[in-house]
């Protein structure tokens, strides 16, 4: 079974994002970028499926700027087999991403697509679901466990009330949650091997997808600064303070 793993290049989760002074977005100049953590989990899961003999080939796809090649290369060093970069410097909204991915799925015919549940930059949490809808495939979102069971894929989902297990017919789309696995990091020999792996260069036009944004960002602002708190001695003081402040 071929597995397709889309990955996104985002601001490194260790970096404190700064909003541009004009409020048009987050300042990305000279900021360390990295693979979206949920995408790392997706790659890891695909590699584990390959190690178990369930997956035969892992194709790592990214849609983004030239530098997203580096992100694909990280995925290849973790165990991906080859890459596809759909290069664009424009902002690509989730629906456009899903449309491009659908076109890639049509061309590649994978048996499974594993995406992160969301990217930590926009937190949109839409792409996997949209892709499943466009393909008309079953979806298992927020996966915390994936098991191949006969010709079905059993996916344990982290839902509000607890855990839900669904059985999906293949081909399917799965989106990964934080507790699915702990991603490995590349060893030096694998970083070296990844350099030899192939990355196909494409553009959105190659797939006939119009990526013009449908949304306009009105304003991006920093969260309000937290005021310094105050420590109180006991519950009684806390209650009286809250009363004085008119909070209760």
């Amino acid at each position, binding site marked *: 079974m071929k597995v397709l793993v889309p990955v996104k290049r985002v601001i490194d989760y260790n970096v404190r994002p700064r909003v541009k002074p004009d409020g048009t977005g987050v300042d990305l100049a000279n900021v360390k970028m990295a693979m979206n953590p949920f995408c790392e989990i997706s790659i890891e899961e695909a590699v584990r499926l390959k190690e178990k003999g369930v997956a035969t080939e892992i194709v790592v796809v990214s849609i983004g700027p030239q530098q997203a090649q580096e992100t694909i290369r990280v995925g290849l*060093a973790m165990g991906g087999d080859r890459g596809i970069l759909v290069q664009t410097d424009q902002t690509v909204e989730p629906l456009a991403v899903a449309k491009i991915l659908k076109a890639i799925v049509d061309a590649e015919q994978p048996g499974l697509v594993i995406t992160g549940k969301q990217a930590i930059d926009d937190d949109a949490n839409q792409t996997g679901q949209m892709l499943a809808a466009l393909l008309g495939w079953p979806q298992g979102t927020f996966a915390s466990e994936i098991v191949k069971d006969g010709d079905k894929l059993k996916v344990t989902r982290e839902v509000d009330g607890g855990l839900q297990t669904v059985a999906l017919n293949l081909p399917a789309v799965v989106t990964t949650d934080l507790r699915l696995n702990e991603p490995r990091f590349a060893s030096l020999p694998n970083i070296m091997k990844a350099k030899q792996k192939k990355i196909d260069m494409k553009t959105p036009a190659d797939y006939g997808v119009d990526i013009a944004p449908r949304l306009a960002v009105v304003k991006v602002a920093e969260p309000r600064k937290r005021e310094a708190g105050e420590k109180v001695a006991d519950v009684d003081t806390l209650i009286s303070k809250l009363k004085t402040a008119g909070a209760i």
Partner: protein
Amino acid sequence: MHNVTAMSEEQAAIKDAVERTCAAFPAEYWRKVDETGEWPEAFTKAMAEGGWLGVAMPEEVGGAGLGLTEAAIVMQTVTRSGAGFSGASAIHLNIFGPKPLERFGTAEQKQVHLPKIISGEQKMCFAVTEPNSGLDTSSLETKAERTNSGYVINGRKIWTTGAQRADKILIIARTTPKDQCAKPYLGLSLFYTDFNRGQIDAKPIPKMGRKAVECNMLYIDGLEVPREDLIGEEGEGFKYLLQGLNPERVLFAVEAIGLGFAALERASQYAKERVVFGRPIGQNQGVAHPLARCWAELSAAELLSYKAAKLFDDGLDCGAEANAAKYLGAEAGFNACEASVLAHGGMGYAKEYDVERYMREAMIARIAPVSREMILNFISERVLGLPKSY
């Protein structure tokens, strides 16, 4: 090399992977091995498993075939993680120690030993320094005398790092008396041979820091060395040794710089949080400026280190740059550790805050493998053309 934009994609991936490997070994781990003196085995194993020991070894023997620049990124990342020299020195020798073997060994010597050094299976130590000759290597007294099957070595070595667990020793000894040689540096030979505990007695030297990675006094009494353990030609050992010196200086430089940056990070954090006289201590310029100055010094030394590494990787002479980088890096690293201890006040003296360990370890790079004075001698003589003083 902390400026992410200056690194290639591959170098950034290397730094990232080493950072993640080191993240499994937090401050408590290093604090503990510094107290018990236990070798950081789990760390050494993790680095070997990640393939990092082979970063600068040729691909034919299982290395990655990368250069000094990448090796330097690896080692700087190690000390920068807080592992300091307790971490760096545990693997340092695997990285450039085998250079003479790689450059001048026979195909067989390379095929037999290098893959095992890379996998961490073979542990080596490097015995140059002697109690009676010190930095004056040409006056070393250890002798290797010819026998029917090879050589027999007698003598003493001092400071040999890692000899307690080594199964191989890279050792330099005199094969022709100095007064019979055309030049004092001739007549020395290099051997890579079994660390035979029946004939080498290794006694650890109690020392100031880096307790986890021990140094030893070696008493070598009748060590039999088969002829095939000689590296290259007899009498040419010092020339072979020189091949590894410049890269080693660069590694020492960046190791000290990485540790300096680690200390600075700890101090800046503390100076932001610690409130005295109603404000964070870091708001006082008397606290802030020494830290800022250290950052500037570290950054300058870092630039020169990677310049030296680049020259070396391009096959150009890097003697002056490598020596100057080692000098500046060691000083900047130590200064940053000292400034960080001072910024912590009393807590700087407490083990719990780690910076006192950093400071003890940072002293190593100022002394070994070559002292500051000898570096300045080298620059005076070779770069400035001044008369030799000794």
